[in-house]
């Protein structure tokens, strides 16, 4: 009996040693920060979950001589309702949960504070939600403090503005061609938020000066406005042919729904984050069909990774991934950088992230000197999507700079707009 116990102990001991694979090493903790009760936070969490599962199933992250698993920490920033909540959640992620890396964030106003906290703690924070250029300008202004920040998604609001103008140009060209209109009138409608200010400024300058369009007015509703009929009525009075939108909050849904209900005879194009979500069609009762928005993902072949990721996400979470699900790519970037650095040391990983050149779900990822994602035909372009018959389809780039993603369809003007101008 004693012998049996001895053998058992030895076997158990051996198992402990032999079975001490790399994954027995402490996990790498990644804080996923976002407003978890909202779609944006769900995107953050779901994207990161898929990536962590794939990485862990494949054995984890190779750090020097050991394999380490990823452990995700869900950090609910509640940033839509309270910026102090976002501050507290970030502090807690660092001091209590002792995260090694951070990904996520959504509202620029909240992310700026979250960024400061992460930088003070020298934690790498890959932004997957906030678009304001200032978040990356800080890196150039004070590299030593802000070098731990990288923005992966979306492209910054200056680039978003560029894609916005390209979408506008596409719609304008089609209106001129199909309806025989000469000089187009444009109404600018942008929610009153910090990230939208540079786009509005650029639109007011660029449209008349470089695109030959007349700006008939600029409307700045509250991001949470529940009624936009007054704005839409005023816009109709101006005779605008196109409404150029900039929305990231619920006002985008209200505006698009009422635009469709009133059949306002003006094409609706721009940035409308709400219309990037699968639930948009149902929430608007299909009234906002033909809404065009700048987007990050759709079921088109941007890279070889896009459609498999899109399908897997849709199957697992029963909704299409929005751009905050870019945490999926963020985790793979962290993996690649940590493995090349052979360490989780923030300074070493920063050096590797700066060298990244990788084809991910939204395109080719290369960070510029300000640690911002590079935009352009050879990098991430972003896409333009339009709701057509209950489906969110890619309509841009459709030949722009020679870029067309497999699965792209032609843009359609709303039939009531065509009818109005063909009378």
């Amino acid at each position, binding site marked *: 009996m004693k012998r049996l116990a001895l053998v058992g102990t030895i076997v158990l001991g051996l198992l402990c040693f032999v079975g001490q694979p790399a994954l027995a090493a402490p996990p790498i903790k990644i804080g996923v920060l976002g407003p978890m009760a909202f779609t944006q936070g769900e995107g953050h969490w779901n994207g990161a979950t898929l990536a962590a599962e794939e990485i862990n199933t494949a054995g984890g992250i190779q750090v020097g001589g050991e394999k380490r698993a990823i452990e995700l920490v869900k950090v609910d920033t509640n940033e839509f309702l309270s910026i102090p909540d976002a501050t507290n959640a970030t502090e807690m992620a660092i001091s209590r949960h002792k995260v090694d890396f951070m990904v996520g964030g959504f509202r620029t106003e909240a992310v700026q504070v979250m960024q400061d906290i992460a930088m003070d703690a020298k934690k790498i924070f890959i932004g997957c939600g906030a678009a304001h250029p200032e978040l990356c300008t800080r890196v150039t202004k004070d590299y030593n403090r802000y070098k731990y920040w990288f923005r992966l998604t979306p492209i910054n609001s200056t680039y978003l503005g560029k894609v916005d103008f390209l979408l506008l140009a596409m719609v304008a060209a089609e209106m001129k061609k199909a309806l025989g209109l000469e000089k187009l009138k444009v109404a600018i409608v942008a929610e009153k938020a910090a990230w939208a200010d540079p786009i509005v400024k650029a639109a007011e300058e660029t449209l008349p000066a470089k695109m030959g369009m007349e700006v008939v007015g600029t409307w700045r509703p509250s991001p949470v406005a529940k009624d936009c009929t*007054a704005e839409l*009525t005023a816009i109709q*009075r101006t005779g605008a042919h196109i409404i150029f939108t900039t929305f990231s909050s619920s006002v985008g849904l209200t505006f698009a729904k009422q635009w469709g209900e009133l059949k306002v005879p003006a094409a609706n194009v721009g940035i409308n984050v709400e219309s990037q979500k699968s639930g948009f069609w149902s929430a608007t*009762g299909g009234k906002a069909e033909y809404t065009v928005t700048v987007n990050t993902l759709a079921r088109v072949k941007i890279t070889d990774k896009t459609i498999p990721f899109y399908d897997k996400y849709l199957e697992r979470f029963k909704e299409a991934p929005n751009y905050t699900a870019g945490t999926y790519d963020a985790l793979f970037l962290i993996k690649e950088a940590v493995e090349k650095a052979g360490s989780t040391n923030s300074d070493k990983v920063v050096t590797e992230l700066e060298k990244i050149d990788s084809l991910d779900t939204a395109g080719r990822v290369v960070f510029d000197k300000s640690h911002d994602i590079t935009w352009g035909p050879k990098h991430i372009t972003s896409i333009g999507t339009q709701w057509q018959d209950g489906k969110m389809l890619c309509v841009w780039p459709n030949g722009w700079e020679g870029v067309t993603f497999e699965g792209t369809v032609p843009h359609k003007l709303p039939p009531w707009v065509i009818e109005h101008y063909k009378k």
Partner: protein
Amino acid sequence: MAMLLDIIIDGLIKGSVYALLAIGFSLVLGVARIINIAHTALFMTAAYLIYIGSKLMGLPLLLAMTAAVVLTVLLGLVVYRLFIQPIQEHEAAVLIATIAVAMMLQEVFLMSFGGHYLGVPPLVEGFLHILGVKVTMQHLLALGLSLVMLFGVRQFLMKTRLGLALRSTAQDREVANLMGMDVNRVALLTVAISVGLAAMTGAIVVPLITVEPTMWMHPLIMMLAIVVLGGLGSIEGSFVGAYILGFAESLVVFMLPMGSFLKDSVALSVMILVLLIRPEGLFGVSFEEER
């Protein structure tokens, strides 16, 4: 001229919806001295129940709306009996308790449905041109129903014995009690009517708005501004105040497009201005007199 028409039509629709909310709030404040901050949270409850009934359970929209109004009134009565009645004599405590109820409802919906923006289809589709202004049929329906309900409430208060009881309790609770009225029953009835108005407002406007867990906050601010502007507890005041703020909002959007996000602030500024000139509000008794 065109802009004036736009402002009149838009302001009229906004004002009518605000009036419905504010009158229910004013009624319960005037009669039972309850500052029910949860009033618009109950409006939100009705909106969510309509969503559940029509979208999740597949009930016909009208049936879902009726069920939602009944269930919301029942919930309102439960809230009254559990959280308000035991502390009814302490106005500050009631105020805090109803804030807690509102937050509780917000959290319940946030946990159950997340922060997703949800929508309910309109009862009537399409739009009409009224003097050159496009107005959706659902907005027109909301305007019509609001006016019918406002008229109904007025007739009830002015032409029925129960209405008389409500008004007399609103004027002087102690004297009404001395005259043999069961003021507690009157208060309970008032709560039911008030919550019913909130729920019906929810039913009328739910196809026009986005259903989400913070949808109660903006109407609350507007409603408080209206009742302070009209005079605390004054039903006539709430009616007039609602239209003043409705028109003020429309004016801002049409006259100051770049500042259309300021429409709430302008409405609140109107309230502050009136308070500075006439602290008791447009139709209220002065606070000193009331004491």
